[in-house]
C-alpha cells in the first residue's frame, strides 16, 4: 500500500515536471480539409432506362464529383453541380459556438419503373435550421423545410404535384432537476393537382422530465394537434403520456409508459378511433453477462363503428421477451420473441374480422469476431393469424454473412439471405393468397484489396432472385439482378486521387422482358485536396 502511494506520488511529480517543461510548446493549429473532384462517365445502357433510373439518375458525361470544405467550425459540401441530381450542405458554428446554422438543398430526378418509357419525376427539398444555446444546457431551435414533389407514373395513377412546408420552434434543455421541452409546429400541405384537399396542421407540445434521484425519472408529455382542411370541420388530437424509469439496483431496471390519445375527427364518415389508451410495463434484469428483458403491453381502443352509430370497445395485449449476452468473449447471442393478440374484438359487422387477431415474431442474432474477421447469423420468423377467417401467413428469413482477411491487404466479405413465405386459408384457387407470395434469395460477395497506402481495389458482386407464382403475369414478380461493381483508386503523393469505376449490371424480368436492362457503366474521376 505504501509502495503504491509512493508510486502515485512519484508519477504525479514526474507528470508535473513534464508539465513545466513542455507547457510552452505550441499545439498544431486546427486543420481544414478542402477537397475538389471532377469526373466523366458513360452509362452504356441497353433496355429499360425507366427501371435503371428507379431511384436516382447517375451523371452522364462530365460531372462535378464534389466540392468540400471541412473544418471543426464550418463545413460546406456540394455534389453533382450541373447534373440532374445535386446536393448541397452547409454547417457552421457562429457566435463562439453558441449558434449553429445548418442548411441543406437536394434535388433528384427519377422515373417510375416500367417497361415503357416513363415520364420523369422530380423531388427537391430545402431545409434551414438555427440552434442557439441560451445556456450550455438549454437550446432554442427554429427549423424550416420545404419539400416539393412532382411525380408522374407510367400507369393510370393520379400524378403528384405537391408542396409541403413545415416550421417548427423548440425550446428544450435542463431545468431544475429535470428537462423541459416546448415545441410548436406549423405544417402546410398543398396539392397543385387539386385532387386532394390542402391541409394545415398546428401542433403544440410540452414535456417535463423530473429526475429526483439518478435512479428515478418521471416524464409527462402533453400535446395537442389541430388539422384544418378548407371548408371542412377542424379535427383535433390530444395526447397525454407518462413515462417512468426506475433503477432499483445495479442489475435491475423497471419502465412504465401510460399513454392516452383522444381524437375528434368530424370529417370522417366511416369508422374511426375516438380514444386509445396504451400501457407498457417492462423489466430488465442483468444475470451475470446475460440480460433478460420482459415487457407487457395493453391497448384499449374505443372507436365508432362503420355507420357511426355505436362505440365499440376493442382491446389488444402483447408480451415481449429479449434475452441477450455473450457465449464467450467474442460471440454475442440475442433471442427475441413477441406475441400479440386481440383480447376483445369488435364484432358489430363482419368487416371487423379483417384484422389479424394474433401476431408472433421470433428472432435470433448470433455474431462472432475472430482475428480481424467477423461472422453473423440471423434468423427471423413472423406469423400473422386471422382466427375468424382462418387465414395464416408466415415468413421465415435466414441471413448468414461475414468478413474474412485473406492476407496481404486482401479481405473477403460475403452474405447470403433467403426469405420464404407460406399462407393458408382464405380463397384458394388460381388467384388465391398462396399464389402471390414472394420468395427471395440474395447473395453478395465483396473483395477488398489495398496495396500500401496508394492503391485500393474494391470488387462487389450482388445477385438477387425473387419469384412468385404470378398468375396475372405482372412485371416485377419474377426478377433477377446481377450487379458487378469494380472500383480502383490510386492515391498520388500530392494527395490527389484517380478513381476508375466499371459496373456491368444486368437486370432481367422473366415475365415482362420490356423491364430488362443491361448497363456497362464506365466512370473515371479525379479529386484533389487544395
Amino acid at each position, binding site marked *: 500500500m505504501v509502495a503504491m502511494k509512493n508510486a502515485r506520488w512519484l*508519477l*504525479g511529480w514526474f*507528470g508535473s515536471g513534464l508539465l513545466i517543461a513542455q507547457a510552452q510548446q505550441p499545439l498544431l493549429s486546427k486543420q481544414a480539409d478542402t477537397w475538389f473532384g471532377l469526373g466523366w462517365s458513360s452509362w452504356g445502357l441497353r433496355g429499360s432506362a425507366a427501371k435503371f433510373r428507379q431511384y*436516382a439518375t447517375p451523371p452522364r458525361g462530365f460531372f462535378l464529383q464534389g466540392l468540400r470544405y471541412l473544418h*471543426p467550425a464550418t463545413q460546406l459540401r456540394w455534389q453533382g453541380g450541373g*447534373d440532374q441530381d*445535386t446536393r448541397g450542405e452547409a454547417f457552421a458554428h457562429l457566435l*463562439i459556438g453558441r449558434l449553429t446554422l445548418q442548411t441543406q438543398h437536394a434535388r433528384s430526378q427519377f422515373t417510375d*419503373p416500367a417497361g415503357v418509357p416513363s415520364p420523369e419525376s422530380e423531388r427537391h427539398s430545402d431545409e434551414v435550421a438555427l440552434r442557439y444555446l441560451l445556456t450550455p444546457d438549454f*437550446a432554442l*431551435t427554429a*427549423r424550416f423545410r420545404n419539400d416539393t414533389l412532382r411525380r408522374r407514373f407510367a400507369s393510370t*395513377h393520379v400524378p403528384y404535384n*405537391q408542396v409541403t412546408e*413545415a416550421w417548427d420552434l*423548440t425550446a*428544450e434543455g435542463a431545468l431544475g432537476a429535470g428537462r423541459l421541452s416546448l415545441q410548436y409546429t406549423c*405544417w402546410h*400541405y398543398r396539392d397543385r393537382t387539386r385532387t386532394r384537399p390542402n391541409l394545415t396542421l398546428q401542433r403544440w407540445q410540452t414535456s417535463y*422530465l423530473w*429526475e429526483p434521484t*439518478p435512479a*428515478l*425519472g418521471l416524464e409527462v408529455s402533453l400535446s395537442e394537434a389541430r388539422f384544418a382542411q378548407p371548408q371542412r370541420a377542424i379535427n383535433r388530437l390530444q395526447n397525454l403520456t407518462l413515462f417512468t*424509469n426506475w433503477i*432499483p*439496483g445495479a442489475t435491475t*431496471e423497471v419502465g412504465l409508459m401510460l399513454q392516452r390519445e383522444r381524437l375528434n375527427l368530424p370529417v370522417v*364518415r366511416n*369508422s374511426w*378511433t375516438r380514444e*386509445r389508451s396504451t400501457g407498457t410495463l417492462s423489466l430488465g434484469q442483468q444475470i451475470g453477462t446475460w440480460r433478460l428483458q420482459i415487457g407487457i403491453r395493453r391497448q384499449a*381502443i374505443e372507436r365508432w363503428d362503420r355507420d357511426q352509430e355505436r362505440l365499440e370497445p*376493442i382491446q389488444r395485449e402483447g408480451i415481449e421477451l429479449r434475452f441477450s449476452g455473450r457465449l464467450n468473449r467474442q460471440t454475442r447471442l440475442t433471442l427475441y420473441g413477441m406475441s400479440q393478440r386481440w383480447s376483445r374484438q369488435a364484432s358489430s359487422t363482419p368487416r371487423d374480422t379483417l384484422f389479424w387477431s394474433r401476431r408472433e415474431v421470433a428472432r435470433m442474432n448470433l455474431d462472432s469476431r475472430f482475428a480481424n474477421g467477423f461472422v453473423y447469423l*440471423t434468423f427471423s420468423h413472423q406469423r*400473422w393469424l*386471422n382466427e375468424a*377467417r382462418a387465414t395464416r401467413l408466415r415468413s421465415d*428469413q435466414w441471413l448468414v454473412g461475414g468478413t474474412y482477411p485473406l492476407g496481404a491487404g486482401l479481405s473477403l466479405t460475403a452474405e447470403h439471405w433467403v*426469405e420464404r413465405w407460406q399462407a393458408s386459408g*382464405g*380463397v384458394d384457387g*388460381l388467384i*388465391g*393468397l398462396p399464389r*402471390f*407470395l414472394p420468395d427471395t434469395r*440474395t447473395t*453478395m460477395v465483396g473483395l477488398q484489396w489495398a496495396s500500401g497506402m496508394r492503391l485500393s481495389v*474494391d470488387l462487389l458482386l450482388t445477385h438477387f432472385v*425473387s419469384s412468385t407464382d404470378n398468375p396475372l403475369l*405482372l412485371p*416485377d*414478380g419474377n426478377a433477377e439482378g446481377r*450487379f458487378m*461493381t469494380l*472500383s480502383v*483508386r490510386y492515391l498520388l503523393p500530392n494527395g490527389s*486521387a484517380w478513381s476508375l469505376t466499371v459496373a456491368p449490371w444486368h437486370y432481367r424480368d422473366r415475365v415482362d422482358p420490356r423491364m430488362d436492362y443491361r448497363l456497362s*457503366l464506365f466512370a473515371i474521376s479525379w479529386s484533389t485536396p487544395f
Partner: protein
Amino acid sequence: MAKREQRVANGKGRAESGNDFCHASLLPCLFWCTVAGLGLLILTAARQHARERAFPLNLFREAQPSDYLGEQACVPCHRSYVISFRNSAHAPYMAKAHLPPDRQGCEACHGPGAIHLREVLEPKGIIRYSKIQPEEVSRACLRCHGATMRPSQWHRTAHAKAGLSCLSCHQIHQNARKESGVTTTLSPPLSTGEATLSPIASSHPLLKGEEVALCSRCHAREASEFRLNFHHPLPEGRLLCTDCHDVHPTREGVKRVRLIREMCTNCHADKTGPFAFEHDPAAGWMGDSCLECHRPHGSPNPRMLKLFSRGLCAQCHTEKGVQHYPARNCWESGCHVAHHGSNSDPLFLSH
C-alpha cells in the same frame, strides 16, 4: 363452510365471527407492513445504487476550481490526443473562455486534471472511456448534453437496453472514422469508398463512420433488405437511417416535424389525412399502420409491399375471390386507386 358462505352472501358475516374480526384487523396491518417494508427496501436499494452510481460525476462534484488545470496541462503526456481533439467537431463548443472550467477542453470529458495528477494510478481518478461501463459513459456524456436528453430518457432507448453507450456510435477525437475502416457494402448504387458518383447525404461529423455502414454493422438483417429490388433509396444516398429513426428519443424538435400517424407522412404527405373515408390499416390506430402493407427497408415487391400484387389485399379481404375482377392489381386496375383513404368514395374508387 356452507353457513359462512351464506352469511357473507346475506351481507352479515364479518362482525359476527371472531376469526373474521381478527382477519379484518390483521389484513390492513399486514398490508401496511408490506408497503412499509417494500418502501424501506426501495429506499435502501436506491441509496445503495446512488452510491454505486457516483462515478464518474463525483469527480466534478468534488473538484475545486483550482483542480482544473486547462488543456495545456494534458499536452506533455497526451499530445496526439489533444491535437486530434482540437480538430474534431466537438472542439468549437469546448474551447471558449466564457465556459466554466469544468466544461472546457479535455477536462470537460475526462475530469479535473489535478486529481489525475495526484493519483495517476487510481482508476477512478480520471474518466477512461475505454475502461468504464456503458452506463458510466452515458452519464458522463449527458452531464453536458442536457439539451439532447437525460439519463432516464437514454435508458428508455433500445440501444441503452442492448448495453450500448454513446461511444458505440460516436467518436470524440478526430480521424477515428478513417481508422475504423467502416465502409458500406450495400451494392447499388455506384458507391465504393471515395468513388461515389451519386450525391449522397453526409453523416454527422461526430459519428464513427458513415451512418448507413455504422448502423448496418449491428442491424445486418435490415441492411440486407436494402439490396432487394425495391427499397428506400439509402444505398443511392438519398436518405440516412436517422431520417426515419429517432436514435435520440427527444430530438424530434430538431428533426423534421412529426405528425400523428407515422413518421412516414413526413415525406409521404398526401397520406396524412384525415380522409372522409378512412382505410383502417392506413389510418394507423388499430394495427401496425403503414407496416401492415409495406416493408420500409426493402422488399422484392413493387411499392415495397409485404406481398405481391393482389396477395396484399387478399391477406385481409379473403372474401374477394375469383369473382372479383381478377385482371390486375386492385389499385393499378383503375378501381381502388385511393386505398390509403378517400374523400369521396367509401370503396376508395376515387380520391
